[in-house]
């Protein structure tokens, strides 16, 4: 289906209203990833229809809701549960929800078509890690089955704040994320993927970047805020 202005206009409105379902909704989310114009149309409706939400009668959520938020965000400071157990529990909750995060939150993903002549059969995954308020992608990602390398090339990425590092993760379709190491400042970051890791990535095609203490997560699982989630596409 072609992205005509009329279609973008009609579908964006239905997307925000929630009446766009199933495959049509997923196709439109793909359009959002591909085009600023589409995202702006969505934002128009989010802004307009958002006013409707402000007029609903308030109802205080039970205290357990806030307690649950704290438990999920800062499991290590919980009193009742041990840090490890809590982290485990939050991980189980958090990761399956990521596919949704990537579309509904402010985070916007882009598809970058890297044109490269391919003389041999080579399955390539490609994508970009972008931030809504930065016009260039932060990093460009490419992965090739031939040389088994995942490459992360910085474009608009800046160094992590003092005392922190960015850590790269594969987010599997289910289960715990797998670290691909700390991303060094400046220069292209390359990781060689073994068969198992590559299978995980080509299955979920989802990467994430979290903010960690210098040297990376001390626990082997993300401990800091998740800054970015990116979906890769097959070229």
């Amino acid at each position: 289906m072609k992205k005509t202005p009329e279609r973008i206009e009609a579908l964006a409105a239905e997307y925000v209203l929630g009446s766009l379902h199933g495959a049509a909704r997923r196709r439109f989310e793909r359009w959002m990833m591909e085009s600023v114009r589409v995202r702006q149309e969505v934002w128009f409706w989010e802004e307009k229809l958002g006013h409707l939400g402000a007029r609903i009668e308030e109802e205080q959520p039970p205290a357990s809701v806030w307690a649950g938020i704290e438990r999920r965000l800062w499991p290590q400071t919980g009193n009742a549960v041990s840090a490890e157990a809590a982290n485990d529990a939050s991980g189980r909750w958090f990761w399956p929800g990521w596919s949704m995060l990537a579309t509904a939150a402010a985070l916007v993903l882009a598809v970058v078509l890297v044109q490269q002549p391919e003389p041999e059969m080579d399955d390539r995954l490609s994508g970009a890690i972008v931030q809504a308020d930065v016009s260039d992608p932060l990093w460009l990602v490419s992965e090739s089955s031939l040389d088994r390398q995942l490459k992360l090339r910085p474009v608009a990425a800046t160094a992590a704040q003092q005392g922190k590092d960015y850590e790269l993760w594969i987010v599997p379709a289910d289960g715990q994320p797998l670290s691909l190491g700390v991303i060094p400042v400046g220069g292209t970051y390359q990781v060689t993927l073994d068969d198992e890791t590559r299978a995980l990535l080509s299955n979920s095609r989802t990467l994430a970047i979290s903010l960690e203490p210098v040297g990376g997560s001390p626990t082997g699982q993300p401990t800091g805020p998740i800054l970015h989630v990116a979906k890769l596409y097959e070229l």
Partner: protein
Amino acid sequence: MVTSNSEQDDLMGLLIAVSREDRLAFQRLYEKISGRMFGLCLKLASQRDLAEEAVQDAFVQIWHHAGEYHSERGAPLSWMLTIARYRTLDLMRNRKSRPTSGDAHLERVADERDGPLDESLRVAGTAELRGCLDELSETQRDSILLSYYRGFTHDELSEALSSPIGTVKSWIRRGLMALKRCLER
């Protein structure tokens, strides 16, 4: 419950602080808007446990993504409520897709004694969209408001408004486009 500019400024300040991982600001933000957010999710889902889960998920997302808010996405409150609304709709769809809970939403529709759309919501919606909803036909307006506030699918709308699905779809589509023309004037 009007959101003044100064309140939006307060919320903006809190969001900026949250993007710097200020937990105290995050808690204040929660105290300020969780009542409105929970009210919206509850209205949408008609299920307390689902609404509670949606509010939790939304705040976890707000914590992680506060730095990605920008003014093109609407006022800070709208942006946060939008996150909660999408999450609620997702959870509702997930539950509906499970075969065992297939009838739950039909009961919900059938149980609407005073009609599916409260008069208060109709009035509130009209006031918020600068009178533009008044320019729509009653059926267009109701199908849009039912989708927004109650998360009705085309099937549910068709049942609630006793009209064929095709008709309901066209009310929504035409209503939204008429609304846009009015809002852009």
